[in-house]
C-alpha cells in the first residue's frame, strides 16, 4: 500500500504542473491589463484631472514601473518559471491590490470558508442519510413521494435566488426580522463579549448561509442514498439475510446500509476541494469574507498572484481528494486491495 501511495503521489506531479500551466496561460491570455486597471484604466482616475501630454508620459512611466515591480514586463515563460520556483518554497508572491503576501490573505479568510463549509457538509450528511434510508425502505409510499418531490424541487431552486429571497423576507427589511442580512458579526460585536455570546452571534449569522449552501447538496445526496440503498436491497445477499431469519432492522442497518455507504463515503473526499474554493455565490450574497469572495474579486481585478494561488490550491486538493477517496474505498470495502492491483 505504501508503494502504491508513493506511486500515486509521484503521478500527481505532472498532472499538477499541467494544471497550473493551463491556469497560468488562461489568466495571461485573458484580456485586461492589471496595471491599467490599477491606474483606474487611465480613464476613470484621470477624469477631468487634466494631465498634460507630458504627464501622460508620466502615467506610462508609472505603469511601466509598476509592471517591473511585479515582474510583469518579463516574457511569459520566464514569469511562469519564476512562479513555479517560488512555489517550491511555498511563496505565492504579493497581491497587486495592497502588496500584502497572498498566503496571509488566504490564511486570513480560510477559517471562515472552512467553518461555513464544514457546518453545511455536516448538515448535508446528517439530513440526507436518514432521509435516504427512509425513502428506500418505504419506496413509493406517500412519505417517499413527498421527499422525492421536495428533493427535486429544492435541487431545482438556484441558491442565489433562494438566498436573495431569504434576505428580503427573513432579515428585517419590510417583513420578518429573524436573521442578519449578511456579514459575520453584529454591529456592536466586541472581543470583550463572553465566549457564549460570541458563539451565539456567529451561529446566528451563519444560519441562513449554511441553510442555503446545504439544501441543494442535501437534496441531491438523499437521492443518491436512496438509489444506492434500493440497489442493495434487491441483492441476493439481502434475500439470504432475511431468509436466515434476521430482523428487518438488522438487515437494513447492518447489511444494506454498510454496503450502500461505500459510494457516499468516496463522494465525501471529492467534496474536499469545495471546502476551500467552494462557496463563491453564497459568500457574495451574504457578504461573507471567505476565500471564494477573495478569488472572485481577484479575477475581476486581474490580481494574478491571488488567482494563481487559488488555482493551485484548488486542483491540488482535488488531486489529493481523488487519492484519498481511493484509499477510503479500501477501508470501507475490503474487497478492494492495492496489492491485488500491483501484482
Amino acid at each position: 500500500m505504501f508503494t502504491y501511495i508513493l506511486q500515486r503521489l509521484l503521478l500527481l506531479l505532472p498532472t499538477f504542473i499541467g494544471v497550473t500551466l493551463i491556469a497560468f496561460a488562461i489568466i495571461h491570455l485573458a484580456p485586461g491589463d492589471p496595471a491599467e486597471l490599477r491606474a483606474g484604466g487611465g480613464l476613470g482616475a484621470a477624469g477631468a484631472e487634466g494631465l498634460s501630454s507630458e504627464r501622460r508620459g508620466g502615467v506610462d512611466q508609472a505603469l511601466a514601473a509598476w509592471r517591473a515591480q511585479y515582474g510583469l514586463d518579463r516574457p511569459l515563460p520566464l514569469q511562469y518559471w519564476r512562479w513555479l520556483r517560488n512555489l517550491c518554497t511555498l511563496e505565492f508572491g504579493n497581491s497587486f491590490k495592497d502588496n500584502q503576501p497572498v498566503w496571509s490573505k488566504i490564511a486570513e479568510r480560510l477559517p471562515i470558508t472552512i467553518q461555513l463549509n464544514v457546518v453545511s457538509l455536516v448538515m448535508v450528511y446528517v439530513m440526507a442519510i436518514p432521509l435516504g434510508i427512509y425513502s428506500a425502505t418505504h419506496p413509493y409510499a406517500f412519505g417517499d413521494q413527498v421527499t422525492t418531490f421536495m428533493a427535486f424541487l429544492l435541487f431545482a431552486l438556484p441558491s442565489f435566488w433562494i438566498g436573495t429571497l431569504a434576505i428580503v423576507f427573513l432579515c428585517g427589511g419590510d417583513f420578518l426580522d429573524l436573521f442578519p442580512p449578511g456579514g459575520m458579526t453584529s454591529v456592536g460585536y466586541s472581543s470583550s463579549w463572553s465566549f457564549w455570546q460570541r458563539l451565539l452571534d456567529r451561529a446566528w449569522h451563519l444560519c441562513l448561509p449554511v441553510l442555503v449552501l446545504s439544501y441543494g447538496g442535501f437534496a441531491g445526496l438523499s437521492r443518491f442514498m436512496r438509489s444506492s440503498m434500493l440497489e442493495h436491497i434487491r441483492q441476493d445477499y439481502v434475500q439470504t439475510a432475511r431468509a436466515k431469519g434476521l430482523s428487518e432492522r438488522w438487515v437494513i442497518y447492518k447489511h444494506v446500509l454498510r454496503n450502500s455507504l461505500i459510494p457516499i463515503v468516496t463522494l465525501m473526499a471529492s467534496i474536499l476541494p469545495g471546502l476551500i474554493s467552494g462557496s463563491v455565490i453564497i459568500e457574495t450574497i451574504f457578504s461573507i469574507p471567505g476565500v471564494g469572495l477573495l478569488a472572485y474579486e481577484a479575477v475581476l481585478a486581474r490580481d494574478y498572484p491571488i488567482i494563481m494561488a487559488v488555482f493551485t490550491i484548488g486542483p491540488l486538493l482535488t488531486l489529493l481528494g481523488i487519492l484519498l477517496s481511493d484509499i477510503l474505498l479500501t477501508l470501507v470495502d475490503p474487497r478492494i486491495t492495492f496489492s491485488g492491483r500491483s501484482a
Partner: protein
Amino acid sequence: MWVRTRQEGERGQCWVVGLLLLCASLLPAQAADTPVTGDWLVSHMLSDPESLNPLTSNDAGSARILGSIFETLLDHHPQTLELRPHLATARPEISDDKLTYTFTMRRDVHFQDGKPLTGWDLLFSLKAIKNPWVNAPFLRVYYQSLVQAELVDDTTLRLVAKEPYFRNESTLGSFPVLPQHYYDPEGLLDTVSVAELVAMRPGDPVGEASPQAARARQFAERFNTNFARNPMGSGPYKFHSWKTGQEVVLQRDPNYWGIGQEGIDQAYIDQHTARVFNNTDAALVALKAGQLDAMSLTPIQHLKQTSGGRFDKQFAKHLYFAPSYTYIGWNNTHPIFSDPRVRQAMTYLTNRKQMVKTMLFDLGEVVDGPIYLFRPEYDKTLFSHPYDPQKALQLLGEAGWKDTDGDGILDKVIAGQKVPFRFEIKFNSGNEIRKSVALTVQDELKKHGIDANVRQLDWTIYLDDVRSHKFDAIILGWGMPATEPDEYQVWHSSQAENKGSNVIGFTNARADALLEEYRRTFDPQKRIELYREFQQILNQEQPYTFLFIQKSILAVERRFQNVNLYPGGPRSLEWWVLKAQQRYHELSQ
C-alpha cells in the same frame, strides 16, 4: 446580539420633540442647534478598501476613509469649492513667475500620538511621494511638476514647480501629511533631498548604487509592505480596527488639535463604522433593519423599495448631482463620423429628454457640455439639440447620405467606394443604463435607414478597445472633481495618441489653443471666458453626443442633524445626534 425594534426609535423621537418644545418655551433656542458629541455612524461600503496606506492606495473607498485620518495644507471649502488653508496659516505666496509656492504652516498641530507636526513631516511626506521605489506611481504623476522642496525655517516650506499651471497651488497644497517618526522611524529619508529623489531612476545601475538611493529603496520596501493596515495621521478620526471583508472602524480623537479652533471643521460622531455588504439588496435590508445608518441607493431602490411612510419616518433621502456625465463618443477618425454634420444628426436622433425620463426616472438632467453642470465654467446658454429626426435627415442628406440602391439603408460613396451607413456601438456589460441607451439609439436609427450593431464587452476588454481606438461608437462616462475643471487631457489633439484620454480622436486647432491658454491663465474670470468659447466649439462639432448627469441618492437615518448637501455630496464629518436620540453609547473595544 444586537436587535432593535422599530418602535423604540419612534418613541425616542416623539420624546425628543416633546423635550424640544419644552426647551423652546423655557430656554430660548439652544439645545437644537448646539452640536454635541457621541453616538456612531454605521455606513455602507460595497467592498473593503484596497489598503489604508495613504500613498499607495488608489481607490475611492480608501480615499474616503483616509480623508478623515490625514490632513493637507489646503482644502476646498465644501460649498464655494474655494481653496482655503487647513494645516497652513494662509494660502501660499506665489512668485511672479508662478513657479515658487511658499507655504507657512500652523504651529499648534500635533499627530494622533501627541507628537507635534512640524515642517519636517511636510518635507518627509513629499519625499515619500517622490521616492521612485514607493509603490505610488499614480499619485506621483500629479507631483511630477514638483522639482524642488525645502524648508526655509521650521514652519515655512518652499516648493518649486516645473511649469506655470493654475492648478499647481491646489495640487502642491493637497498632499497628505504623514508623521515621519511613525512611517520612517530610522530617519532613512533624512539625508535624501527631494531634488536627489527627482533625479533617481530605478533600474539605472549607477544611480541605484549610490548610498542615497540605497536608503530611499530601503525606506520604500518597508513603507510599501508595513503600513497597509495601520494608518496614523493628524486628522479628527483615529484608525481603530479593520476586520477584512467586514468592517473598518474609526474613532474620534478626543485630543484632536483642531478642537475648538476657528475655521477648522469639528467632528461630533464618536465612531464611524463602515460595514461591507457586497450585495446592495442585502445592504438595503440591513438599512431597514437598523443595522446601517446611511447608504447610497440605486434609482430603483429609491423609487420602488424605499417609498412609504415607515421608511420616510426612519430615513431622510438626499439627492444630489455627483460630478459626472454619460456620453456617446463617436470615433472622429471613422470615415462615417469624421463629418461633423453626421455627428450633429446623431445627436438630433438621440431623444435625450426621453432617456432621462424613462431610464433615469427623471433622476438626472440632460447636459450639453463636458463641464460639471454647477460650475461657473459651464455654459448654460449652449444650444441644446432637441430630438428632431427631420433636421437630422436633412443634415445627413447634406453630408451625402442617401439610400441609392433601395435596400433600406443609407449609403454614400467614400473614396470611390459605396459605403452603407453601418456601424457598431460598444459598451461595457453589466451597466444597464448604458445598455438601454445603446438599444434605444439602435432602434431609433433603424427607423431612418441606419444599421447600428450593439455589442457589450467585459470592462477590461472594453477598456482596451476604447484606449486603442478600436470602435465606431462607445457609450461611456466621465467622473470628475467638483473643483476647477481642466479638460486638456480629454480634448487636446496631442492626447489622441499614445493611448491618451482623447479616445475619440477629436482635433480642432482653436480648441487646442484655448485649452493651452486656459492652463496658463491664473485669473478665474478669464478662464471662464476661455471655456465658454471652448464649449461653443464642442457644441458645434458634437464630437460626443453628451447625454446626461445622474443624481446620486443617499439615505440617512433621521437622528443625524446638520446633514447638508454640497456639490460633492453630503459630508458626514459635520453630522451630530441629540443626546437623547443617541443609539450607541460605548465605543468598540
